[in-house]
């Protein structure tokens, strides 16, 4: 990759239960196989019950980094929910950051309880676009439901990341990793999800 920042900081975020841990591991393994030193930090536990979750990947050509990304140093934010993208941008974003976000919103408990209002998706998207160098909005949950299961939303987003060509990961490498890691009965569905996500961003103009 040209202009490799050392280390490369990727943040994968979303809402508890959306599968951000699985795709961080897949990405970690793909990059490790290429010789990068990858450190992933996660906070799973109570947050898996509807809270904000994120994994941080520090990808280095030199040495093992702390799993925590310093303020303003995210290179890519891959989000399974649009408001979560903005939440991570608040602390880790910068004018060069690139963002890929699912377009399906998940309402927080305070919204259900009538104590807060979830903003319009269009408003969220324009804020994300304005605060990033490039942004891609992917209807990942819709694609996953179309394939028969919302559970592969995360794999659609992984495909979108590969298609955006913002990281040194090829479609073939991602497919190989899916075949190695995903249980046999689910491989076809996941490969389809990966390819559908890939097609959304490949060659597409970012916002």
């Amino acid at each position, binding site marked *: 990759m040209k202009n490799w920042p050392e280390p490369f900081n990727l943040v994968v975020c979303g809402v508890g239960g959306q599968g951000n841990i699985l795709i961080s591991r897949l990405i970690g393994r793909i990059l490790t196989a290429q010789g990068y030193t990858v450190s992933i930090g996660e906070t799973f*536990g109570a947050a898996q019950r509807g809270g904000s979750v994120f994994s941080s990947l520090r990808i280095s050509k030199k040495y093992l980094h*702390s*799993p925590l990304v310093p303020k303003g140093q995210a290179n890519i934010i891959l989000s399974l929910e649009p408001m979560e993208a903005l939440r991570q941008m*608040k602390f880790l974003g910068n004018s060069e950051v690139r963002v890929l976000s699912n377009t399906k919103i998940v309402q927080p*408990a305070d919204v259900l*309880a009538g104590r807060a209002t979830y903003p319009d998706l269009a408003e969220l998207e324009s*804020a994300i676009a304005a605060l990033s160098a490039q942004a891609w909005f992917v209807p990942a949950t819709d694609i996953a*439901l179309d394939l028969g299961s919302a559970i592969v939303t995360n794999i659609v987003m992984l495909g979108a990341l590969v298609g955006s060509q913002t990281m040194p990961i090829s479609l073939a490498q991602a497919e190989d990793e899916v075949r190695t890691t995903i249980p046999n009965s689910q491989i076809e569905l996941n490969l389809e999800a990966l390819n559908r996500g890939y097609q959304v961003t490949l060659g597409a103009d970012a916002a």
Partner: protein
Amino acid sequence: MNNGKSQEATSFLLGNEAIARAALEAGIHFASGYPGTPSSEIIRTIVPYAEKSNIHVEWSVNEKVGCEGAAAAAFAGLRSLAAMKNAGLSVALDFLTHLSMTGLGDNNGAMVVVVCDDPDGHSSGDETDSRWLARFSYAPLLEPSSIPEARQLMQWAYDVSTEFDCHVMLRSYTRLSHASTMIELGEINQKDVKPQTDSSVSISPYVARPKHAAVLKRLDRIREKFETASFNTYEGPDQPQLIIVCSGSGYLCARDAIASLDIGQSVGILKLTTLWPFPKKWTANHLARADRFLIAEEVDPYIEIHVKETMVDAGLEGKQIFGKESGHIPAYGEITPDRIIAALSEILGIEYRGGSEEYDRKIASQADPLIIGRGLAWCPGCPHRATFWALEKAVKKDRRNAYVTGDIGCYTLDVFPGGKSVQNLLHAMGSGAGLATGLGQLGRFGYHQPVIAVCGDSTFFHGSIPALINAVTNKSNLIQIVLDNQATAMTGFQPHPGTGTNALGMPAPKIEIEDLCRALGCDVTVADPFDVRSSIRTIRNLLKKDGGVRVLIMRRTCELVRVKQDKRMPYSIYVDQQKCKGEECGICTSEFRCPGLVWDNFENYSTIREDICSGCGVCVDICPFNAIAREEVA
């Protein structure tokens, strides 16, 4: 760890998986633990090796019993592991302090206690620093600073335990336990040992005073070993302008901070790994290199205090120490690269800003107004939501201000934004029952509010039983509700004595909560939380029965467990827009708060989120206008 598809020389592992792997490579025979974030994956990782490597693996009823079992194996000459979170260490501490007094006998057994702290309280009600408890209980303490080091250190811990005939404590923390990286794998190497115990000797802490003196001598010998341990390192210039003294997560954060500020030419890092007994001589030799020190650790100023003590003992004068006690790093929360960068910038007078001011201004004007908090909430289909709905209604109808003492598990989410905040007191595992026992005695002083304790099924076995016995025998007046969802749900659905399975997923004797409570003399009722109307009636009736210990078991399998066994939805749910009163009502969203039911702002009625609705059908019963309907799924 991996899905069993390949046997590789390296593997991408969680910190907890690397710790477990190292224990396997050190040849453990016995592993026990009680689930608790961030420690739960340690025992889970050992389970697949139980049969092929002949290891006894158990989820123990609580951490104290887990440690006792592991120590017993060590007394018999085997190698054992006990794993728990920080809160669990306090439960085990009474035994562990006495275990230090006796040591592990002379059968060449070994025992390592792994405790996983949770700085920042990501999944805990406190951020207690377990390192003090090692010193408090006279146990050698090791703290790894990275996952590869954790693997080496864990193996070394077994050597130290064998050499000095005492248990060793290894302290992990969220940013190690729940971080992951690539790890080299070694051979799993269990020694064929025939366990034996010597019936002719008594191993006991008596007489305490001379035994204590002997323990201190043992600690002196361990300190000598730690003085030359290669795990403690110094890296940086010979005569640095400042040294960052660190342990654990502080080490990688310090490296990142130095790289961010580009001050590697003038700042060194002194990394301490053997933390008790503290290697004073080694530390003093390196402290002589510089005059200024920043201490980076989490959570309490443990190293900071020991460094100050070391300086006094070594006669080092004129040194400046920055850290938690000076206010340069907060004494709460986790250590981060940013916290170290901020402290270094202030001490060394370096201008540094994480990101641009202009970007932060844009965030404040364009992002902040849109971001709303995302509090924790029960899953769609969670039986706890139904139980707390019924409990709140019953308590309101009872009109005597019932007071509810809570406990630790998924039902703790009641006090988060997705819950009902029915629980009035919340402390430790089993404390709901204990607090209720006390409140239930206050009638003689004129306290007449009904007292209701709630706990989960795993928590019931872990810590509630002694309190219930106390309540029965002292004639306390209370209702204990056991939210039995057939799993230790919050930490990953581990089995417990009431599930009928063991850690390996094999059938195990099932201890019925109702049988146990009846044997204690409690008045026991079992109900289904999904039958909301009947649950409300049942709780009201129990409230009316004032007097004695009444146990109500609300039994319904955790939805996340159920869906693993049966992917089908019981019902398909829909909202009848003709009957929905829209904004006039809103009970199903604003009060019931199931994430599967959302408000449609455009159409002004509530609607089902089909991608996450579990089809439990409880919302049908809470809608006052019968606007929500369910159809059985064929």
